């Protein structure tokens, strides 16, 4: 994974709560066996209905998605962050995220940033008024900065470390092979195997 330290760019607002992963990437696109190429299918059904906010010219090329609470609820499909990344988003800011979705974002190098409802509201109002407003999400200092404001955000320290350094989590776990082998030896004999 490439290190992720700083995202600077314009915002796109998606002022909705409970946006589920079925909307982010509908099921018919989960039949592909690749990790890339999902961008054109992001929010497919909503965009097909016309005048979807992300298709408005003023939000083209935005790199930060600002959304409502419980973003990414529902299915565990990692295709959701893959599609958001492919579309061009490098960070998502919301008052809360579904647990599996947030974990999937970190593995994909997508910054999922939680800010209080009032601050998210400020960002949505700001981008509605001035779509060209720029924002910086700084993972190192854990800050979301724009003109005249700076918001601190909390993030799991281990996830932060992995993102900042682009760490391969499998390689990290493999370093503990001795611990894993010891654990395996101590497992109860009655535990099932599939053989």
């Amino acid at each position, binding site marked *: 994974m490439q290190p992720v330290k700083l995202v600077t760019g314009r915002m796109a607002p998606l002022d909705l709560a409970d946006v589920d992963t079925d909307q982010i990437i509908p099921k018919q696109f989960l039949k592909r066996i*690749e990790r890339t190429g999902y961008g054109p299918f992001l929010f497919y059904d909503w965009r097909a209905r016309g005048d979807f906010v992300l298709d408005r010219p003023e939000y083209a090329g935005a790199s930060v998605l600002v959304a409502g609470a419980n973003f990414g609820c529902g299915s*565990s499909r990692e295709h959701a962050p893959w599609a958001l990344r492919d579309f061009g988003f490098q960070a998502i800011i919301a008052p809360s995220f*579904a647990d599996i979705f947030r974990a999937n974002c970190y593995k994909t190098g997508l910054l999922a940033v939680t800010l209080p409802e009032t601050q998210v509201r400020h960002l949505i109002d700001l981008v509605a008024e001035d779509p060209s407003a720029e924002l910086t999400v700084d993972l190192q200092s854990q800050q979301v900065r724009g003109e005249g404001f700076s918001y601190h955000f909390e993030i799991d320290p281990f996830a932060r470390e992995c993102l900042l350094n682009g760490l391969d989590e499998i390689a*990290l776990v493999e370093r*503990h092979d001795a*611990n894993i082998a010891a654990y395996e030896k101590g497992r109860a004999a009655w535990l*099932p195997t*599939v053989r």
Partner: protein
Amino acid sequence: MAKTLAQKLWDAHVVRSAEGEPDLLFVDLHLVHEVTSPQAFEGLRLAGRKVRRPDLSVATMDHNVPTRGGVRAADDMSRKQMEVLTENCRREGIPLHQIGSRRQGIVHVIGPELGLTQPGMLIVCGDSHTSTHGAFGALAFGIGTSEVELVLATQCLPQKRQGDLAVNVTGELPVGITAKDIVLGLIGRTGTSAGQGHLVEYRGPTIRGLSMEGRMTVCNMSIEWGAKAGMVAPDDTTFSYVEGKPHAPKGAAWEKALDHWRSLTSDEDAHFDGVIDIDAGKLEPHVTWGTTPAQVVPVTGRVPSPRSETDERALRYMDLLPGTALADIAIDRVFIGSCTNARLEDLRAAAGVIQGRRVHPKVRAMVVPGSTSVKRAAEEEGLDLVFKAAGFEWRNAGCSMCLGMNPDILAPGERCASTSNRNFEGRQGSGGRTHLMSPPMAAAAAITGHLVDVRELL
């Protein structure tokens, strides 16, 4: 220190613990299916890694299998995904229950059936409804594809500690009320995200009184209120379900396992961060009206007035007006199936309502058993004949219309009474409208052609 069941299960799986890092947990069973695994296997192959414990991994085809016509009825991309799974399992030595085989079925139905799901285990799968297995007193949760790759490679998963919640259910379930109504009623109260960051234990005399099937239905929908996992402490109901299953311990091993399993309860003075009390005696049959499982009311009620933009959006999508009596909503389709409600007991409950009646002429109804084994067992009891005589389609096992990744989908605008777990926009087919409910409620809707209180038909 007094511990909750969840923390006992967690602690028993810690391979390594270090300050400032997530715990490294050992996975006892990794369930694999065709949709969320191809990129994980490919990642392994590109990095020159092998599956560490193929003996603790098992695969099935469920999400995109056609429920009639076999693999030939699948579209090219679905077939390709099934072929890729077959090849990945062959190369890595992972047993695969493929389409057409005796044990094929929905991943969360076959794990328990095979006796691979047992108390005390840590179980993961690239599917959010993995919480189902918590019904056995296991710690079970869904993971993404990168985590699938990590588990394939190391059999471990780094996880941050979670909080503890208890849902305490008391009171006798009235006639016509099921486990599905307990969990729908719960989600209606908590909303879609109250469980975030928590492991939930469902407890109390009503939960103790549920069969394993009922407990699985409740645990299955834990994710719909945001919980990391849901579980029920194992007891004699659990043990008698597991005993004799193909992979269950036998002889002396059974006795040892049983000794351990009996210790898997929350200590009396264990601390929960929150307790939610539910009086099951006051429950009514529940039906969703909106596009999240939390948008739910008793079937005796009316479509509520919107309280948020989310509610307004749901009403528009569902084409419903506030104040409409639920019982006045006509339906086009009925789906009895899914990892939530397609086990033998669910089919029996639905058949009990249908016996001697006919599906409404305007309704197309189908039953999709959760597994090939469930299908066989149901046929041995003659349940298939009850459904077919009433005008139901009797299909082969799979996820089917729960998520519409296969030929079973709603047409745009169609309204479905469904025993599945999600009523999201387009979930059962683009433009389709889903009302979630229990199997007896869906059966009743099939007969009357509209949403109806099943108690009127009992």
